[in-house]
């Protein structure tokens, strides 16, 4: 009852993971297999090169990040510039150059609320096509996501230039999904059919740990790994989407990576008190309450709290 398929695989860079299933072992299929093996080596090499390229991109902000805080002075507080940040994800166009079946363009804007938290808004466009031995699939649409970024670095290390943390986002994906053709075979013969374009509105959650570093004045680069959980595919179970813009394949959980370049616009400075690692033993009994409070760092908006820290 179960049909066993032979298959060849076209390993596309950054994993388009196309699988061509051949439902027979005819001579034509075997010839296709041999041709496929040759192209497979090329695509494997292409994948390795893409991987090396991406790893280089990942290590670059890490190097800059490792230099941060090396000459930090011992201070009670530090000035942190809050910034409005706008940037683009360059992995989408990079993938498109190696695999024309998918184009994703994404841009974002984020605003620092304080030294720890930033508001994130992102939007993008995706054009995706996929072919199997028995069907073709198209998906074209846009996505929008909003959330928060949490910087886990200490303020004296981050200094408004470096970010290492986790972003949490809620995403909405809207696309036109279409299956221009598919074939199905059973006892009664072979049937060719199609599914007309229909609109899908999917919802998902995204967690994005990553790094970002300011390379030049007001110019940052950074990367994140994106883990996504589909909340709603926006379509009934029988015709769930194979691809959702901004989310990826229609599985319940997907993962991806993004490499951002961004332009920063400082709009305000805040003074942040620094946390002391070792508790001091020589504070005055009279001021003990205040000294204890001073050990936790926080944003100083200028007046009362700031005076106590100085």
């Amino acid at each position, binding site marked *: 009852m179960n049909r066993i398929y032979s298959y060849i695989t076209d390993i596309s860079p950054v994993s388009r993971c196309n699988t061509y299933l051949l439902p027979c072992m005819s001579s034509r299929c075997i010839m296709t297999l041999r041709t496929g093996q040759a192209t497979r080596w090329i695509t494997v090499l292409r994948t390795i090169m893409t991987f090396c390229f991406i790893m280089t991109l990942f290590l670059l902000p890490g190097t800059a990040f490792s230099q941060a805080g090396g000459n930090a002075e011992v201070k009670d507080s530090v000035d942190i510039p809050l910034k409005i940040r706008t940037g683009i994800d360059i992995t989408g166009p990079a993938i498109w150059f190696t695999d024309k079946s998918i184009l994703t363009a994404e841009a974002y804007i984020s605003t620092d609320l304080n030294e720890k938290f930033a508001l994130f808004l992102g939007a993008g466009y995706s054009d995706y096509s996929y072919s199997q031995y028995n069907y073709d699939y198209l998906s074209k649409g846009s996505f929008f996501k909003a959330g928060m970024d949490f910087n886990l670095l200490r303020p004296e290390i981050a200094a408004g230039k470096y970010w290492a943390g986790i972003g949490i986002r809620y995403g909405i994906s809207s696309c036109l999904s279409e299956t221009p053709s598919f074939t199905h075979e059973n006892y009664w*013969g072979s049937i060719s059919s199609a599914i007309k374009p229909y609109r899908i509105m999917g919802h998902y959650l995204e967690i994005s740990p990553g790094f970002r570093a300011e390379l030049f004045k007001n110019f940052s680069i950074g990367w994140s790994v994106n883990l996504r959980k589909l909340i709603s595919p926006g379509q009934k179970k029988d015709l769930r989407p194979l691809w959702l813009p901004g989310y990826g394949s229609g599985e319940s959980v997907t993962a991806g990576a993004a490499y951002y370049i961004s332009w920063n616009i400082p709009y305000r400075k805040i003074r942040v008190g620094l946390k002391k690692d070792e508790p001091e033993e020589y504070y005055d009994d009279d001021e003990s309450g205040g000294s204890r409070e001073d050990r936790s760092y926080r944003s100083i908006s200028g007046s009362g709290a700031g005076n106590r820290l100085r």
Partner: protein
Amino acid sequence: MRNTFNIISAVVVACALFLSVSCTPGSCFEETNSYLKATFYRTSQGKPVPPDSLSMYGIGKDSAVYKKASRVQPALIPLDPSASACGFLIRINGVDDTVSFFYSTFTHLISRECGYTFFHDLDSLAYTRNIIDTILIKFRTISTFNEPNIFIYY
């Protein structure tokens, strides 16, 4: 600081591993055809008993679904997705009957690897009563899953 870095690194490595696993190309090992599953019952015994010999032909087709097959339980009956009805000649232990199925068809995505198939909703059926006593509809949705759809008493 070191702890933070370690936590982020661990999450990144875990995500990278997930990414590599999720991008491993797959092949289709799932059932791609939906069948109407028919379970045979002996009326006299009131329990599932497969026929000693079963032959089944689609009406208008030359090829057989089953040809003198023994101990078939359940019988897997393929419906015609391009029509809203189809009929079968069923020969149970050498005695012929015909069964007609009336149904609606809808498209179902099996998986990215396997593509699409057709599922059906069984509306009704009609049959002759040479050896068949009764046919009960148990589950109307005809899919690639294993639920029995009809009980054939003979």
